[in-house]
């Protein structure tokens, strides 16, 4: 019973106690009349233990989410629309836009001149997936990836869209995807957090990331994402200060834990229990983390695969390599964010720089997982929070344009983890504006990820403030067509 997940709801806090008082006494009385031992604690623990396992045989055990923060343009990456090049400079037909709301950044524009990709596209792999020349390495793994061209979301600005993608709600008081998986599946390796967060920044126009994106929300704090640092020491203040031995640390933790337990007995706040757990986790991480974050023993083949940047701690490439190592060591959910994809202007100048940052390492991660036999149990997801408009934001000039936010259609790709490799799912119209086939809503995306992890999105619930919450809340359909 050391896993706090099992004890989670048994903690008596005021709300729990009052909530159970009225109903609980009645049912307990009735229950004990009918069947003896119906409410004995043993059956309850059983139940919790089974809940911490997949509901059915999972396709994937772990997730690595390569979040492209700021929303990379689908029209310069995976959604090939030659029509936009043909109609260069012409106004977006009103019938296509069809009353779609726009952001304050382009709503007052007099015209919406269409603009096609500045970068050529080519078909790759057996399925002939269209990929722009900005991503030559991702193009090489075309046979491993499933491109979804029909993602759509409800939010039109970064913060709500990001929060929606991460937590299934736009407001930001709900648990992040990684926290839900930590809650539902627990940790494979008790020496590492089940949910790790790695940040990096490109040179393009950036949008912030903030800790609410990896919050545990109303779940127990042990499910919170742990943010790694970009310095040479990837987890700050983890190691013992000089002069403090591991044994000293143990003694100190035991004493602190004793005091915390006394406090817990008195106050009963479940957060105290979380704190005790976190101290213990950090103690175990002292051995595990240096082993994993030490990249000095990586072979030349691996370094070449991820690119020369992969040994510099604040780069996307090094985060990809670290993500592989963490995932290989049983971390349930590794979340990367790469900032700088918000190309409102100067798209033709910034997009190549951004693409160069992520192209090699993203492909390397998939290939590396594959060579280690981990790809079929690790789900890799690559994508942003929404798409970009097919018309130019601001003045359109030869070779220089920008694109505004577009929630109606965007592209992401997934690889491994039981997703069908080498396929394209969904289609947009020839303007790349509206989805015409197989739309995938953010809730559907969440349902599918949970399904691949062996969880039924309708059964992974947590009761809070008197109602049951899910990652998909009251919606979401598993996209069976992309599951191998």
């Amino acid at each position, binding site marked *: 019973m050391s896993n706090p997940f099992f004890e989670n709801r048994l903690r008596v806090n005021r709300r729990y106690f009052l909530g159970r008082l009225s109903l609980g006494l009645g049912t307990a009385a009735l229950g004990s009349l009918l069947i003896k031992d119906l409410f004995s604690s043993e059956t309850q623990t059983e139940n919790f233990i089974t809940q911490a396992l997949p509901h059915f045989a999972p396709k994937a055990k772990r997730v690595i989410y390569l979040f492209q923060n700021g929303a990379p343009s689908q029209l310069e990456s995976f959604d090939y629309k030659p029509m936009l090049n043909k109609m260069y400079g012409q106004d977006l037909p009103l019938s296509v836009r069809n009353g779609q709301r726009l952001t304050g950044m382009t709503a007052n524009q007099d015209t919406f001149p269409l603009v096609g990709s500045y970068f050529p596209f080519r078909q790759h792999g057996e399925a002939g997936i269209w990929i722009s020349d900005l991503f030559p390495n991702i193009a090489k793994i075309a046979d491993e990836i499933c491109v979804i061209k029909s993602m759509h979301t409800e939010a039109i600005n970064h913060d709500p869209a990001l929060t929606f993608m991460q937590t299934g709600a736009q407001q930001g008081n709900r648990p992040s995807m990684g926290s839900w998986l930590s809650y539902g599946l627990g940790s494979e*390796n*008790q020496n590492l957090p089940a949910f790790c967060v790695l940040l990096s920044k490109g040179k393009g126009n950036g949008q912030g990331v903030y800790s609410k994106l990896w919050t545990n929300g109303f779940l127990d704090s042990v499910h919170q994402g742990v943010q790694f640092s970009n310095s040479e020491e990837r987890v700050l203040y983890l190691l013992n200060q000089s002069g403090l031995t591991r044994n000293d640390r143990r003694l100190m933790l035991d004493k602190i834990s004793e005091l915390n337990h006394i406090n817990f007995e008195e106050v009963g706040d479940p957060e105290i229990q979380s704190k005790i757990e976190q101290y213990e986790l950090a103690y175990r991480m002292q051995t595990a983390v240096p082993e994993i974050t030490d990249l000095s023993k990586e072979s030349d*083949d691996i370094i*070449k695969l991820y*690119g020369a940047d992969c040994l510099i701690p604040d780069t996307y490439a090094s985060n990809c390599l670290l993500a592989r190592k963490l995932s290989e060591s049983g971390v349930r959910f590794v979340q990367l964010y790469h900032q700088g994809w918000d190309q409102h202007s100067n798209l033709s100048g910034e997009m190549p720089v951004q693409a160069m940052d992520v192209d090699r390492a993203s492909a390397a991660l998939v290939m590396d997982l594959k060579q280690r036999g981990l790809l079929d149990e690790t789900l890799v997801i690559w994508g942003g929070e929404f798409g970009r408009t097919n018309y130019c934001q601001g003045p359109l000039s030869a070779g220089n344009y920008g694109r505004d936010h577009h929630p109606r259609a965007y592209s992401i790709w997934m690889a491994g983890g039981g997703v069908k490799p080498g396929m394209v799912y969904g289609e947009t119209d020839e303007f790349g504006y509206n989805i015409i086939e197989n739309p995938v809503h953010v809730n559907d995306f969440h349902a599918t990820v949970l399904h691949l992890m062996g969880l039924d999105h309708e059964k992974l619930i947590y009761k809070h403030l008197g109602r049951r919450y899910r990652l998909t809340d009251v919606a979401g359909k598993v996209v*069976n067509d992309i599951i191998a």
Partner: protein
Amino acid sequence: MKKLPSILSACNFACCLLLILLGVFHESLNISDVTMLAGRFHVLFLHLPIGGMFALICIRLLKKTMQQEPYEHIFNLVLSNVLLVSLLSAITGIFIAASGDYGEEAVALHRKAGMTFSVLLYAYSVIRHYLGVIAETLLFTMLIFVLVFTGHQGGVITHGTEFFAVNPDQTDETDTTDWNKKPVFESAIMPVMQKKCTSCHNEQKSNGGLMLTDAASWQKGGKSGALLIAGDVNNSLIINRLLLPMDDEHHMPPAEKPQLTEEEINLLRIWIESGASYTKTVQNYSENDSLLAIVSAMILKTSRKEKQYTFGNAPKEVVSRLNNPYVSVKPVYAGSPALSASFFVASAYQTASLDGLKTIGEQLVHLNLSGMPLGSKDFEIIASFRNLERLYLNNTAISDQDIKLLEKLQNLIYLSMQDCRVSPAVEILFSSIKPLQTVHIGSDKINEGIIASWQKRHKDINFVSGVKIHEAIPLSPPIFKNEEGILKTGDSIRLMHHIRGASIWYTTDGSTPDTIKGIQYRKPFAIRQSAEIKAIAIKEGWVTSQPASFNAYEAGVEPKAVRLISRPAPQYPGLGPATFTNRKLATISNTRDANWIGYRDEPCVLEVEFEEPVAVQRVVLNFACHIPQYIFPPTRIRVYGGNSLHAMQLLGSKSLKPIVPAEKEKVLSDTGQMVLLGKAYRYFRIEADNLSKIPAWHPGKGEKGWLFIDEIFFYR
């Protein structure tokens, strides 16, 4: 109210007569729209007699507690009502059965039972007063049994005979043995029908007069005509119905029922296109036929379903005892007897933990020991886990001896040995372990040629080799380890590169280094006054890196005061005059950094005063070059000197190279210097002009450019 019992009894009598008539002549019944509509009410009425009988039972049970008269009143009233709804239910039942949508055999039994119940109930209501207690109770009990039987028969018609099977999911299981010898129709199409269609189109219940249970019924079609036209998908009814919009009432299956997947519809289309043969097996189709591909994909998928194991669950206490922070043992999924074990943290590895798994040796099917310091003893233990299916040994020191031990793992499907130092001797495993499907292998002793030859000899195994990048890719630029660009006394420049064996070459004059012009970096070096350092990294097999640049400054002579003569832009006042001499460098990415001072409407003009005359030989400016943000280098720098503010003379003037379109992305902190004759003066006046007109290739063409200055240094 008093009339109610007699009205009911009259109704009941009439209904009973009608029922008997209908019962006798049901075969010659003419179906009209009215009777069809009436028939639909059967589903409403049929539940009422069941509830009513339950009420009667309850009332009977309370008989002893009640007085005779109220009891009789209540019982009679309820009985009459039950009788009425039973009769209505039976009559409407006969109508609905006559519509012909249901299998005659099943309906006949239900009809007989229903009529028997109604007539018997009528008889009971008439004669129960004349019967003795025992006879009355017997008759009543009999009624209950007849009702239950009738209800069950009705249920069979609507829900099928297997509705009460303990595990309804098992009907989903399709027998996939010999699938390639059976007709495609049976091996691929019928399973889809059984899952999604035959619950409404079967012998018992053939909605729309259509059965879909076998080839004969397919060929017969339904009321709307032939089910399909071989070779003509677009005019085949079945496909049309499947593809109608969900809200169309003819869409099949009905909106509330499970729909066919895209793949399943596709299967039907291709099957119809290729002639809709009920007898052809996959072997009759050519190898390239798309039907063959889709059928095998579908069938193999269903047969790949969760594997069934013959061994039982390991005791829970045993499993939980084996778990510790460094070993995780868990069921593969909830309820599965199969276990998976993973080891973590190499420095905490103990052979005893692996040995402990022997207690669950039978259940252990997945084992992950990647990165663990394993020895021969450990491999002996691994070889004892006979049921292992997946084994991960990435990054372990497995020897040829150990490989031989693994031959005992006769259930192994998946083996991963990436980053191992195994020799080609590992090949013995591929022929001796029959179930082996996937092998991941990467070792410096095994090249791509060896793997290719294995692939030829062992066709059933999928070999995945380690990825090797043969092309040369660029090195990352060297990194400056100095935290500040302004050096403290005695500080030196420190450079580094993360990649082993990469050499660093640098220059200090702003020119691009190479191995001839540059100096190889071996240890930290000092600079004099200021330096524009550029450095590259070189390694064999890699493309030389882009240069990294870094401006480093010694503090130089500190002025006594700086006075602004021109006005900086109000948005970027910086820290006022102190900005130039506070010896803190601004970050280039942040234009709001207070260490920048910005000019646009006026050029930068300032006066500098020293305590005493200083023989300045070089004046160095640190400024921003952020072209996308309209920040350009100064176009011209002029320095004046004098010992009084009124008698200043021009010491030097320098025009800087204009920015060209190729530099439109340039973002860096730049440096510009002016070499002077070194005559001593107390006062200096510096003028730096901002760009007066942004060139045409820039989005801000025609506007004035911004000038951002950070620091000014004076060196003797």
